[in-house]
């Protein structure tokens, strides 16, 4: 279980995360939905112990999270950053092996993890090709596989489908559904309604660092005071407004 209480994070004068309270159950796929600059990635950085200077309290699997936290806490989660956080001059296999080693897998575990990661990314045939020869979709799939290389109980995913073709996007969805079916906890940021609706049991809608509502589609619709037939996009636009966001 992940629990955040009165979570705040500021960059100078700007409050990027503004007193967030939420709980994510074990095995749940939880979505952080919001427009650009809503504070989704900042929230994820706090949850994964990366951000510095946040206040409030976070617990992951019953252990308190703090910046530069204990290794034991970090062993419990994996991060799939929004950037393609893999080494382009290395092959897919080398990337999985390298991050697997740093995640603490021994050589036997690593061999298994590499095969599993390549299958997860659908890159068995391109295992020994350099990443800079891959398409955007292949890189995104590898990015996901690397984050999951040590099969952590909790996986933080920061917009993992940005800029990919429909086939790769579908592959990533299927992969995430498969991980969720294994009982893994997924925390997923996106600004695509259909992704949130397809994958997430519950969604936290954010805007300007604040929580505007949290729950299932139905619960959010009720919180917004809208008709039961409203789409998630209607609810989202109702809550966050229709003005343009430039990050």
């Amino acid at each position, binding site marked *: 279980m992940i629990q955040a209480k009165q979570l705040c994070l500021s960059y100078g004068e700007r409050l990027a995360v503004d007193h967030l309270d939420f709980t994510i159950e074990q095995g749940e796929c939880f979505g952080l939905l919001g427009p650009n600059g809503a504070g989704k990635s900042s929230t994820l950085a706090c949850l994964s112990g990366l951000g510095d200077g946040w206040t409030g309290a976070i617990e992951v699997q019953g252990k308190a999270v703090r910046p530069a936290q204990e290794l034991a806490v970090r062993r419990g989660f994996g991060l799939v950053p929004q950037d393609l956080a893999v080494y382009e001059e290395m092959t897919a296999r080398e990337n999985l092996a390298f991050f697997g*080693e740093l995640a603490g897998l021994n050589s036997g575990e690593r061999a298994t993890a590499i095969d599993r990661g390549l299958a997860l990314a659908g890159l068995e045939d391109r295992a020994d090709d350099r990443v800079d020869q891959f398409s955007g979709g292949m890189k995104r799939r590898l990015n996901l596989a690397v984050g999951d290389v040590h099969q952590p109980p909790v996986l933080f995913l920061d917009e993992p489908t940005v800029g990919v073709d429909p086939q790769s996007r579908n592959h990533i969805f299927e992969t995430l559904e498969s991980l969720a079916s294994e009982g893994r906890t997924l925390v997923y940021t996106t600004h695509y309604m259909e992704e949130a609706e397809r994958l997430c049991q519950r969604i936290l809608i954010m805007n300007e660092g604040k929580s505007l509502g949290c729950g299932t589609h139905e619960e959010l619709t009720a919180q917004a005071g809208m008709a039961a037939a409203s789409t998630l996009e209607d609810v989202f636009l109702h809550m966050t407004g229709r003005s343009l966001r430039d990050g």
Partner: protein
Amino acid sequence: MNFFPAAIALARKDLRLFFRDRTGMLLGFLLPVSLVTIFGYLMGLMTGDGGSSPMARATVWVADEDQSESSKAFVTLLRESSMLRVRPRLLEDGTLQDEAYDTGTLRQRVIDGDTDLALLIGAGFAEAVEQGELAPLTLVRDPGRQMESQLARLGVVQALGELTEGRVFTSMMAKQMREAGTPEVMIEGMEQVSQGQYQMFQGVMQGEGLVVTEDHAPPERDEDVSYAQAQAVGGIAVMMVLFGLTAAATTLLRERDEGTMRRLLSLPMPPGSILLGKALSTMVVGMIQITLLFAVGEILFGIGIWRDPLTLFVLMLSTVAAASAFGLLIASWAKTPKQAEGMSTLIILVMSCLGGSWFPLQMLDLPAAIEVAMRMTINHWSVSGFQDLFWKAQSLGDSGIQASVGVLWLFTLLASLLAHRLFRRNYLGRA
């Protein structure tokens, strides 16, 4: 994963990436090797005597209007002078490589700024020499080139003395004595001391007579070792290692910009191991680079790397550690690669200039403030250490090398601590 295994895994990854980019790697090694070769060669040429003497030569264009046997012999003596580089050049087959000018043209070339120094041998030179009179010689110069001008004067006087076997000095003295109203009977006695004066002049020119010279070169030093070339090899090696390792360390910024830093920081390993991993990989690259540079120095200039390999290894390691820590400090401080590039270039060039990487500044009488600034640089301690090893033939047991090694490691420690602090602030805080 624990601190050291994680750092080693990270260093292995960085080295794999470094060696995979073969063109980049070759260029990274080729540039310093080229600079060491060129600087070493030029220093050897500039300082003469295989680089062991700081004396430079002055280039003097000569026009001989007299064209007598005597004037030709005088020009030959000028060509043999260790202080002069006479133009037009004389080739081995006796022909001139450059165009020979008459006195009027040569004077005009100095006036026009095409030539800095010209010696005009006037008509009647042979006759004047024969009769023991002052020879018609004119040095035409750009007054801004004082050092070359003084060298040229010395060279001319020395050649003239040799040509006349010292009679020229008698003539000069007689002329001055007559002008001062000295009785003729005393002037006539001058010829008797002429030879003695000439011998004294020769002795003064060779540093004998007035000063007793004792030579004490370290017995262990290889005779082929040149002071200037050892300085050039050590100096350029340190500068290029600083540039190379700073560039390697700034891949830390690349990790941040490309997102891999975020992932690394989320992994179950101490964040400090990222910095240590980077330090280890840059040190391996630095050791390869500096070894290659000294090998080139040995092959081309015989700087003497085999005399004391242990001391050389310790000095190289100390230099590379300090350069690596400097690189990490810059990388941890900078917010963008451009900032890192600009700041490191500025600091490395200033340190190289002050620290003796370009020129042996210790030969100059520097103001106290510059002396202090010089001692604040990595280059100074490193180059001093290498000169103590190669030129003074010192070893680890000698205080000079101990001081160099000690200061370099102190710098490494302080820079590493500061880099770690900045890394935590700028990388962990902004992930």
